[in-house]
């Protein structure tokens, strides 16, 4: 679940040339900034093909294009809960596992988790996975809340007492109702996977109570703002917060960003590689998926984007700084408190989104 930072990259990639007639072409549609710099070049070289690599920055954009039909994409990377709904709509073709020998590299446990959205992993394999937790400016938080600030808890954003002290410094939430409402419900001790209207309303009420102290709701702006020290706390996606951390370090601006999976638990999501039914080149799509599951290739991507992968064989090749970070690869204890996103029916979607508008605007 990566979001865009540089639009130009997307434009440049989209503009890359048209392949000659005989040349085999693969069309990949992935999240922006979500692959190692050399992955595509290596694939093109190794298979003697041309890759059209296009990017998006929200599941909604991907889904709208898929539902409109005739996308021409061979490989897309939806997030698990979206994947499940799209499978239901008949958008994906089953994978031919005989063409995916590198499936053996995958972590059985994580693939089993992902199978909650796609029985037997019939249609998709895990690309990267991550959590929705909290990124914060360690120095500023200590300054405002003191050394015993609850930086390991959702109370950093859900306790009005605490958030109000941070408001001046800047608090942002993801503009993602299906992630924020369950997090609030979980904080209240309710089941984050509940689809009970009353539970959603309770979550919304909690969010409304902190709304006056929230500067904005956005799913990518916080990366820059955290890195620059313009905001102090942001609910965000793990890899994005790490990106903010890296940027701050690079800028040497004295801002120190940390990512935490709060002790109450957090949403765990999987971004999945899948092949649309109308893919023009399904054979090559299989080759690409198999290629990405190569231990070295996956390790390269993780080392570059700082998201966890589900590839057991790649672990020894991943930077120890990453493997040892509990924000990326959580401890067993933390893992136990992660939950997967529930897939809502359209009525529930409407309830959730309507409540979200109410939270944001008071209407």
């Amino acid at each position: 679940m990566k979001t865009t930072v540089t639009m130009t990259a997307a434009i440049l990639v989209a503009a890359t040339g048209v392949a000659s007639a005989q040349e085999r072409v693969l069309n990949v549609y992935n999240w922006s900034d979500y692959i190692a710099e050399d992955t595509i070049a290596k694939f093109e070289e190794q298979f003697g093909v041309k890759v059209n690599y296009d990017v998006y920055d929200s599941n909604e954009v991907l889904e709208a294009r898929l539902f409109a039909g005739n996308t021409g994409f061979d490989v897309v990377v939806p997030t698990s809960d979206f994947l499940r709904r799209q499978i239901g709509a008949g958008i994906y073709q089953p994978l031919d596992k005989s063409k995916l020998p590198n499936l053996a590299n995958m972590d059985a446990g994580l693939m089993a988790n992902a199978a909650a959205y796609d029985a037997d992993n019939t249609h998709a394999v895990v690309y990267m996975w991550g959590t929705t937790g909290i990124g914060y400016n360690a120095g500023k938080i200590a300054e405002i809340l003191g050394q015993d600030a609850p930086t390991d808890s959702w109370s950093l954003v859900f306790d009005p007492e605490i958030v109000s002290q941070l408001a001046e410094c800047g608090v942002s939430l993801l503009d993602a109702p299906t992630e924020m409402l369950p997090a609030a419900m979980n904080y209240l001790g309710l089941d984050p996977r509940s689809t009970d209207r009353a539970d959603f309303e309770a979550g919304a009420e909690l969010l409304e109570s902190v709304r006056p102290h929230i500067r904005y709701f956005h799913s990518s702006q916080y990366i820059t703002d955290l890195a620059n020290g313009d905001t102090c706390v942001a609910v965000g996606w793990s890899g994005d917060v790490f990106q903010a951390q890296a940027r701050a370090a690079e800028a040497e601006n004295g801002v120190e960003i940390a990512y935490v999976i709060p002790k109450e638990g957090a949403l765990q999501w999987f971004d999945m590689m899948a092949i649309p039914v109308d893919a023009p080149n399904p054979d090559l799509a299989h080759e690409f998926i198999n290629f990405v599951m190569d231990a070295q290739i996956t390790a390269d991507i993780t080392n570059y984007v700082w998201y966890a992968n589900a590839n057991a064989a790649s672990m020894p090749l991943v930077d120890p700084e990453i493997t040892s970070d509990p924000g990326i690869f959580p401890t067993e204890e933390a893992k136990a408190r992660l939950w997967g996103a529930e897939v809502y029916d359209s009525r529930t979607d409407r309830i959730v989104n309507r409540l979200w508008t109410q939270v944001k605007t008071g209407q």
Partner: protein
Amino acid sequence: MAHAAARPKGSVSDVREHPSMTMRDRISGALGRRLVIGTPFLWLLIFFLVPFGIVFLVSLGAPEFGVPPYSPAFEWDGGVPRFVGSFDNYIFLTEDDLYWIAYLGSVKIALGATLLCLLVAYPMAYMIARAEPGMRNILLMLVILPFWTSSLLRIYALMGMLRQGGFINSALMGLGITDAPIQMMQTDFAVYLTIVFTYLPLMVLPLYSTLEKLDGSLLEAAADLGANSFQTFWTVTLPLSLPGILAGCLLVFIPAVGEFVIPDLMGAQDSPMIGNVLWGEFTRNRDWPVASAVAIAMLALLVIPFMLLRNTSALRD
């Protein structure tokens, strides 16, 4: 129209008097004229009416799980179309205040931004129209230039200016005017500023073109008849630039009502906007029919007042 071009230079008016014009000339002239008038209509048909019709049909369907994600409004019953859609989606819009509130909120912001745009653009256009002809083109270029970059890039550039550690705050603090950064991002100020900045050329250009055509001797006549510069502006310049003002306001207001990128990126999202509501219906609720109904309703609410306005004498003269 090759025909008209072949005729030695002559204005439309002397066509009527030309004795050697045959019946055939006249007929093909009329055909040509009809073609010239017809082309914009064709354009309108292809790029507006057809998409509008499609969206309208979608709005009569119901959301469905699949590709496309809505049920059709018509079914083919042995080669005869049978209407199976409904206006439920429009009724639904009236059941939740949100849509009204969002629409009014958008109109409010769009009106405010349009007014601000006008206030900023008018003096600019006036100055450019009064500048030396050589200078005029340079100034016009400067107005149009930002349009050549993606609006998103311009928005990001403004973010860089407005954010806490951005250019403006650094300058203010560097000059000792303020000692803490001012929160400008995620405020209404940022939203209005960005809309004005983004749409300014759309306001300046029509204003410029009417002001540039304004006959200087009219201003002299007003002065000669005892008007001071304010009266001259109020009684001559302003009324005569009214078509430019209306054109500019429409060009800014209409897209500004549907604007959702700017409030989303620059604002605090604390008031609902119709553009965001539509986007939410389309993507989050995956309800293309309701999204289409919102779009059609928004268009109707926007277009009807302007159709009425068009019939007032102000525009006709």
